[in-house]
């Protein structure tokens, strides 16, 4: 077993890293909203699910790929992937704003208790998932293969698959862009201001509704990108995948310290890696248990996650 593990260590690590980056992007969706509203956005998992479907629809219907067609190469591949990424991000971003308007805005402006928006978000999550279930007849939807999943390099005997490389590189770029966005831009500064102190931010002339919508948009964009990467990597999706991935990503966000962008990053990466290693040793069926046990242990010693909840310092 152990010798086997040593052989496969690198390829497991690559797979784990790319899964980790998918978690990072979804976790960013949770963490952005949590940082500003102090609320779990329960429907974020469905935003992710719609992102995966956007990619499938673009590949299948816009570019007319079928299961038999030849994978694209070169510049055409680059261009198709870019359109898919943009489409997924756009759909998820719009959906996320819509979600805020329907499930959160009215309740927030009325200053209701914390749990009412949680339930209305759960309601929206049911609506979105059921809508997609009816559209797809409760079936898994396969995505046609757009790219050859060949290995582009071999490092110490481990194959470096192209799709994993794309996920890791793009995930890292998106993460860095988001970090700069929150640090440098006007909206980013407003988001940080609101997450520090809502009342003072309002007094300083920050338009709260605009900032909250903006936060949901940014979170949705990141989650949508994760949807694209998921479809690229696993090549199928269904109305129910949001739940599983959403829970894992949420765990990742908590692990790093929710409301904290850096925390989502390290939480997601470590969760992806741990999950992959754990399924190698214990079999995939125990993977979720390992993840939660790690979470329990981490929270026992560091009740605010590894990086804490201090949004303001770490975000800047």
């Amino acid at each position, binding site marked *: 077993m152990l010798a086997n593990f040593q052989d496969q260590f690198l390829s497991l690590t690559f797979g784990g890293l790319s899964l980790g980056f998918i978690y990072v992007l979804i976790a960013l969706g949770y963490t952005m909203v*949590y940082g500003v*509203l*102090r609320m*779990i956005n329960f429907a974020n998992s469905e935003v992710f699910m719609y992102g995966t479907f956007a990619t499938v629809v673009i590949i299948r219907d816009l570019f007319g790929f079928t299961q038999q067609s030849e994978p694209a190469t070169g510049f055409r591949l680059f261009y198709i992937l870019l359109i898919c990424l943009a489409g997924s991000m756009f759909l998820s971003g719009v959906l996320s704003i819509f979600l805020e308007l*329907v*499930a959160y805005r*009215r*309740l927030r402006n*009325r*200053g*209701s*208790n*914390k*749990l*009412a*928006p*949680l*339930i*209305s978000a*759960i*309601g*929206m*999550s*049911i*609506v979105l998932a*059921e*809508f997609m279930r*009816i559209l797809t007849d409760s079936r898994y939807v396969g995505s046609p293969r757009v790219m050859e999943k060949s290995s582009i390099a071999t490092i110490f005997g481990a194959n470096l698959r192209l799709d994993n490389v794309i996920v890791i590189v793009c995930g890292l770029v998106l993460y860095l862009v988001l970090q700069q966005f929150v640090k440098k831009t006007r909206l980013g500064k407003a988001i940080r201001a609101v997450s520090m102190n*809502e009342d003072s931010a309002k007094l300083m002339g920050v338009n709260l509704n605009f900032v909250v919508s903006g936060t949901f948009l940014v979170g949705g964009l990141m989650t949508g990108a994760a949807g694209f990467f998921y479809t690229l990597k696993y090549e199928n999706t269904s109305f129910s995948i949001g*739940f599983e991935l959403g*829970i894992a990503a*949420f*765990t990742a966000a*908590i692990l790093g310290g*929710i409301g904290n962008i850096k925390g989502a990053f390290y939480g997601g990466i470590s969760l992806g890696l741990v999950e992959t290693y754990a399924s190698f040793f214990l079999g995939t*069926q*125990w993977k*979720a*248990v390992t*993840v*939660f*046990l790690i*979470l*329990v242990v981490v*929270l*026992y010693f560091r*009740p*605010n996650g590894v990086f804490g909840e201090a949004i303001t310092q770490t975000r800047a």
Partner: protein
Amino acid sequence: MFNLRDFGASIWERSDRKMRVLIALSAIAVAAMLPFLGGTFLNTPVADYGSVLVFPVAIFAIMALGLNIVIGKSGLLDLGYVAFFAIGAYTMGLLGTKTSLNTWEILPIGIAMAMFAGLILGVPALRLRGDYLAIITLGFGEIVRITALNLNAIGGANGIIGIPTPPTIFGLEYTFDNHRLYFWTFLIIILLTIWMIRRLSVRRGGRAWESIRQDEDAAELMGVPTFKYKIWAFVLGASVGGAAGVLYASKTLFISPDNFTLQVSILILACVIFGGMGNIWGVILGAVILGYLPDRIRFLSDARLLVFGIVLVLMMNLRPDGILPRKKREKALPAKDSK
């Protein structure tokens, strides 16, 4: 807006003792009559009306009452409540098929098992607050389900079949399709639970929970042993969940890990909040509506869960405190750090 809760409370407070007994007895009588109303507009199109009343409605009501102790009374967000339900059900399943104990003998064992699990989870988890507690309890629920799924000793994915029905009492035989008898039995359990919660709420423990929910730090400063009472709330909530599990298993006679998913926890949480967190009657009403509604609107066939979700969103937007909210004076003051 018209407040049904205050309206009901004002009638109750104005009436004398005789009147109150009368109101209570007639309410119980109406509830007990429910299984006979199958022929009316209440009828559920596809599922058998009598069986819908037993599961989900009655079972949901018991579980919602239990969860209400944890979340409504003491303000602890528990997203893994299904774990206690599962532990109760598996206790019934295993002991019922492997030993000669009957349902009523297993019931206290199941409750004890669930309470023990509540203690094990509570001691580390209740050091955390708010959303962290939520995710830990959620994780616990999933751990219990996945463990049940992967341990072949307790049936694995196939679950447990052939769980015995409760033994005959007073010449009344619990056959699988004798839904009325089950319903009345569960009604008695519901009444017992209500009684227990009402007694506890007016005592020291109830006041301690109330203070913890409103402001945990202030409660601690005033000398309330918050950790102890949080554990108590958790364990009592677990005991009710365990009881519901035992009863559920001896009604459906077949359990599998699929019956104990996170969705159940979320649905029960929705019952509590939808009905009116902290108010026993609201919680029961929420459980009745949310348990019954998906089967009533089955004529929408495929779209019924979609409609269910829309109802949740609309209701929460229109009545964020639930259909029957708690009394005004019991409402928590807005905590300083909440937004």
